[in-house]
């Protein structure tokens, strides 16, 4: 292979971050920027306290917006897509998401039950005072 040529499009795979022609690429980045900015603004708006959302649902709403924005970043900035040329990247991402989910959800689950089940009443009082 010629070392001076960018070797895109010649194989069946693409690297994360690989892009097509420049007009389409700029347009994709712009779409990503607008979507991400919109989702960020929505997050700050929801967190600022709005009467449109049932208050205990705010955390869920924020989580949904954050996950949506991460998806926007992955697709429009890192160019992780579901195309046949992207299978390796998507599979690696799926494994990463699995581990991240296990670590975060598992930690919260375990610590919640530790707090709930394994304390004598006086310590529970201490925990309440700390809150």
């Amino acid at each position: 292979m010629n070392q001076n040529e960018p070797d895109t499009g010649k194989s069946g795979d693409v690297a994360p971050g690989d892009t097509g022609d420049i007009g389409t690429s700029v347009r994709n980045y712009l779409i990503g920027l607008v979507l991400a900015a919109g989702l960020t603004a929505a997050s700050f708006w929801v967190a600022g306290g709005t009467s449109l959302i049932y208050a205990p649902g705010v955390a869920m709403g924020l989580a949904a917006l954050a996950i949506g924005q991460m998806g926007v970043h992955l697709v429009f900035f890192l160019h992780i897509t579901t195309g046949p040329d992207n299978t390796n990247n998507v599979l690696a991402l799926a494994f990463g998401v699995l581990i991240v989910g296990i670590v975060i959800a598992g930690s919260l689950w375990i610590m919640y039950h530790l707090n709930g089940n394994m304390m004598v009443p006086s310590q529970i009082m201490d925990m309440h005072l700390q809150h």
Partner: protein
Amino acid sequence: MPAAELARIDHERRQARVALVEGREPGITPVKYSEPAEHGAHKRGPGVEVGARNQGPAPKRIVTGYGFWIFLLSDFILFSGFYAAYAVLSHATAGGPTPGKLFNLRTVAIETAFLLISSFVCGMATLASNARNMLWTQIGYCVTGVLGLGFLILEFSEFGRMLAEGAGPGRSAFLSAFFALVGLHGLHVTVGLLWLGTMMAQFWAKGFRADVLRRGMCFALFWHALDIIWVGIFTNVYLLGTSP
């Protein structure tokens, strides 16, 4: 057997092996590993499997990008540990300041905007470098770096303000977890800025060589990934912490 004879036989064998590998031996056709298949060859239809199998190893750009993607995913897993620690400890304020009292959402919004625009401009710089436009590549990286620096300055001034108020990492478990998580992200941004500086210098000094372009691609992936991590931080730490 005399030494000269041994050397001669050895030499003949070596030559034969070289000839075999290079395909000069009669009756042997050389195998071409890097024959480029035309674009979209894997879509030709059922039964015609001329995809990756006949091409040999993938181009270096693909391999490098994939490897760096694996690294980024491992970085996400590192951060997930810090996220989990923060989520577990965020209520353990030990009578000290609570998230709602400490954080200033206006600063966080500006930091977020800086990082998002920086990520976008970094993408533009990558496109400019792929198009071999030195001026726009350098301008793009420069803007990316200035915005990243603005983010860091805001973040560290917030840290300084908190430390001055006595809300340092030693105050409570919540603040330890906070400084660990946000500080780790800030450390990543700092490293990213150093890398950015070396990328600008490399493009300037070495031009748009294939290896430098690969490094630029990896840097862009790194910078975008930092933005993804920041999305998690501003939601989990700042917005959830201050929402009524």
